[in-house]
Structure formats: C-alpha cells, structure tokens
C-alpha cells in the first residue's frame, strides 16, 4: 500500500475572542468545522473520520469532551479520535489526521482543535496547586521567563527584540479578520511601556486567552487533484514530524531544545529542504511570548545559534522580509490553546493555497507550520507546499 500523497482542501476557523458568549462548546467547534467543510465544498456525509484535539479537559471542565462532541462534528457511525499533547496538540492532531490519509485508511478526514477558555480561567487551569509541590509562583509566564533571560544572556540580544516581535505580530493581526487582538493604536512605545509582568516579559509581549477553534479537511491525492481541477488549489503535505523530550533533566537546554531541532531536521529532510531560510517562503511559528520568535528561528535552523534576534532586528521576519513569520498575527494575537497549533498549521496551508487575504505573502509556495507544548518539550511540525510532492 505504501504512503499516499495528502492534501489540505478545506480550512476553517472561528473569530477568536475572549468570550464567545453566543455559542455552546459544540457550537464553537462546529463553526470552524462547517467553514472547513464549506471551503472544501463537502458535506458532513463526505467525511470518513474525525480527529479532535484540545489541551487539558480542565479548561472546560468536561472529561473527554469528544464524546459529547460526536454529534456536532458529524462523527456518529464513524471513527473519532482525540489527541492531547499539551500546547502542541493542535499540530499533533493535524498530523494524526493526515496519517490516516497517508496510510490509505481514509480518503477524507475532518480534523478540529479548540479551546473555550472562558468556561473557566486559563490561570486557574494552568496553576492548580498540587500538594507537596512548591506552588507555580508565577504561572506560564513565570515558567518561561527564565528561559528567555537565559537566551538574552547567551545571545547578547538587546531588550527591544521582544518588543519588535510583539509589534510585528499585532500589526499583522490587523490584516487577519479572525484574530482576537486588533490593536489599531499599537506602537513600539506602547509595547515598551506596557506593564512588565514577568520580567523580562511585558504585558504586550504575551498571548491573550481566547475562545476559538480551527478545522481542516484533509484528503488523499484524488481529493487534492479534484480540488485543484475545480480551481481550489490544495496545500500538499510535504513532511510531518513529532518530537518529545523530558520536561526536566540534567543539562537540558530549554532555550534551544534538542527535540525542536531534531523535529525540524526530520521534517525538512522529508520535504527535501536543505537550506530552510531560502527554501521556505513563510512560517507560522508557535510564539506565545514574543521572545520565542528569535529562539525558534535558531532552533528551527533559520539562523545560527545566537543570531536569531538579528533576523528580527533586520526585519527579515516582517511580511516584506525574506522569511515572513506569523503573518496571521500568530499566538500573540489569538490563543485558543488547544487550537493554536492547528491554526499555525492551517495558516501555513492558507499561504500556499493563496487564500490568506490581506496577510497573504505573494507567491508563497512552501510553508512551515510549527507548534510546541509543555515546557518547550513537545514539538509538532509540517511542511506544506503548493506543488504536489514527488513521492
């Protein structure tokens, strides 16, 4: 049987916002799924299987919510699958869905990822006090801030790099109607003057907490060809990879984790990429705190170690730079945690399909979707292209 070619023919997302007060959990998820189906010009009956992903069940207080969502996602009578790999889950979920097609098991798979964080409070769900363990003194920001400080120390990056990233992503978000934050008045100084929450992380350098969902319709080569023939070019999957490493171990490099680089090498090799900065046209990278952009630029081999911040400073990652990063506004502008990884994967696919609207990079042929989770220890990536892969 061997490996089949895989195409993304439908992409849908919700308008991400702090509280989607007008819908149930099912209604939120359904909205993204329906848009993906509409984009693929398919109906519920066309779908063979459903793969769903989200971060911890405690966010919504529903254990294994896929059981309740089976009806809303048209999964009744079909295989339905639930993935949970922490923050990388949206990416991992898309990979599991594409594997079902690549393996020749199904022809058309719907995959959906979501978070309705407003049902509880992210800070609560992420900082639950566990007996005997020292309290998480500072939530997620407090966990990652020391790594950022470590990066600054190691690379000599100046303080304003994080501000530049935040400004870029928030300005890009103004071109994305689905983004949670649309800060029309944002300036370098407004980011700089925003409250220093977890020094060195400022308020405007952190992601929001969002309700939102993202969905993709993934098909085999036949489906991809049919979409192309109908004038709806698909995004072809050129490579996928996962990598995981322990949260804490002696000598662990949390600034530039080995797992991230190995994952990138794997996915580049599958896609025939030897010079990522030249061969990749656009990147959707998981950047919940602005400083992670230069860190991941190095981790993903776009820059030499210690040099990633210079790409930011030179404007290389701006929409008019040579490697635009997060044209959608990224996680810094919308963060429904469980969906954030799939949004990266979906936005990458939108770019190579030429359907990104105002935040489209002209002529984008090859894109990287990147997600990470846990303590920078779970990685999921895919490369998508406008051209059908050779094998």
């Amino acid at each position, binding site marked *: 049987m061997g490996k089949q070619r895989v195409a993304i023919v439908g992409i849908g997302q919700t308008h991400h916002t702090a509280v989607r007060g007008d819908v149930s959990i099912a209604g939120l998820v359904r909205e993204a799924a329906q848009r993906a189906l509409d984009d693929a010009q398919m109906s519920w009956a066309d779908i063979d299987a459903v793969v769903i992903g989200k971060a911890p069940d405690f966010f919504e207080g529903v254990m294994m919510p896929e059981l309740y969502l089976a009806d809303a996602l048209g999964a009744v009578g079909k295989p339905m699958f639930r993935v949970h790999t922490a923050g990388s889950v949206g990416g991992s979920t898309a990979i599991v869905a594409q594997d079902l097609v690549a393996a020749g098991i199904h022809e058309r798979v719907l995959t959906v990822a979501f978070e309705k964080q407003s049902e509880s409070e992210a800070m609560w769900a992420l900082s639950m006090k566990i007996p005997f363990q020292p*309290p998480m*003194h500072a939530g997620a920001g407090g966990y990652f801030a020391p790594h950022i400080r470590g990066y600054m120390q190691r690379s000599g990056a100046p303080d304003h790099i994080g501000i530049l990233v935040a400004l870029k992503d928030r300005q890009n978000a103004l071109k994305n109607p689905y983004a949670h934050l649309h800060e029309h008045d944002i300036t370098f100084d407004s980011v700089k003057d925003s409250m220093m929450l977890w020094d060195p992380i400022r308020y405007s350098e952190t992601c929001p907490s969002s309700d939102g969902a993202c969905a993709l319709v993934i098909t085999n080569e036949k489906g991809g060809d049919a979409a192309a023939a109908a004038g709806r070019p698909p995004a072809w999957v050129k490579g996928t990879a996962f990598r995981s490493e322990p949260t804490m171990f002696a000598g662990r490099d949390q600034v530039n984790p080995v797992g991230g680089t190995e994952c990138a090498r794997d996915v580049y090799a599958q896609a025939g990429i030897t010079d990522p900065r030249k061969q990749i046209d656009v990147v959707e990278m998981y950047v919940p705190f602005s400083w992670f952009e230069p860190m991941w630029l190095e981790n993903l081999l776009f820059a030499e170690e210690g040099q990633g911040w210079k790409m930011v400073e030179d404007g290389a990652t701006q929409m008019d730079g040579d490697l635009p990063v997060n044209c959608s506004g990224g996680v810094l502008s919308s963060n429904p945690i469980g969906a954030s990884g799939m949004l990266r994967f979906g936005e990458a696919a939108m770019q190579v399909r030429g359907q990104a609207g105002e935040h489209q990079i002209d002529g984008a042929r090859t894109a990287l979707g990147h997600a990470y989770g846990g303590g920078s220890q779970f990685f999921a990536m895919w490369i998508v292209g406008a051209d059908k892969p050779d094998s």
Partner: protein
Amino acid sequence: MSEITLPARLDDLEMVKSIRTPARLEYDYMPGAAPSRFLQGVAQKRLLGQRCPVCRKVYVPARGCCPTDGVPTEEEVELPHVGTVTSFCVVNVQFYGQVMELPYVSALILLDGSDIPLMHLIQEVDAREVHMGQRVEAVWVPDDEIGPTLESIKYFRPTGEPDAAWDTYKDNV
C-alpha cells in the same frame, strides 16, 4: 448559523445565555515512593537527591526515575542548602490563588552537587539585584512549621559569596 424557530411561549422573553455548573472533586493525592522519601527528608531539614545508575546525574527533588534513561534511581545523595541562581524572573502580576507581595523573584536554583535546578523564591534582596550566577542559601520556616513540603524552605537569599563562574552553571541555563 441557521435561524432557530421558537414556540410562541418563548417570544419576547429574555433568553438564558449561560448557566452555572460549579464542580468540586476531591482526590487523595499520592506523590509516590521517592518523592515521599524526599519530602520526609525535607521535614527533617535534609535535601535528599538521587543519582541515576546510568548517567550518574543527581536529581533533586528525588523523583525515583531518571527522565533520560527511564530507569529507577536509588542511590541517595544528601545535598547542601546552598546553590547558584541559573536564571530567574521578576513577577509583577497577581493571579488566581496567589498570595505573594509584588514584585517578587522566582528563580531556578542549582544546589551544589545537584545536576538540575529547582524553582523557588529569592527574598531578602531587592528584586533588581537578583542576577544569574548569584550564590544563594535556603531560609527555612521556623522548626515548628517544618513539614514534608518544599514550602518548608521559605525562600532562598543571597549568601554574599562571589558569583559562580558561568561555566559552572551554563549547562543549566
């Protein structure tokens, strides 16, 4: 979204848009064998790490398992109460359940003889003066408040020694 048609009796009523569904679940939390032993040590003001039989690295708190080799760790190593700040963060934000006075410093501290930093608070020093490489020591809560929890260490404070050399802790940044 499709339009919903309602029975006449629901016309002109203010519609319910959200419901309250509070939930409380109680669990017996069990830290396990090695962490129990570590915490019992803390209750006696002792910091007990464990050395991995394969990679020889010392883990504290003891976890019973080497995370890179996936093997049980049994050899016990008692560690001093002093170490080096490998990195830190100054916290200026309140969040759910938090009781600290702002700002405060949360730091990664590499105890001497250990191969992995643990996260704890730094106090008795202006937040602006905390820095990487700073030497710190544990300050314990009064003896009658000590128990099997890392909160028995109230915080760490600078020892006043010269800073540790970058090479001694760079692998943990």
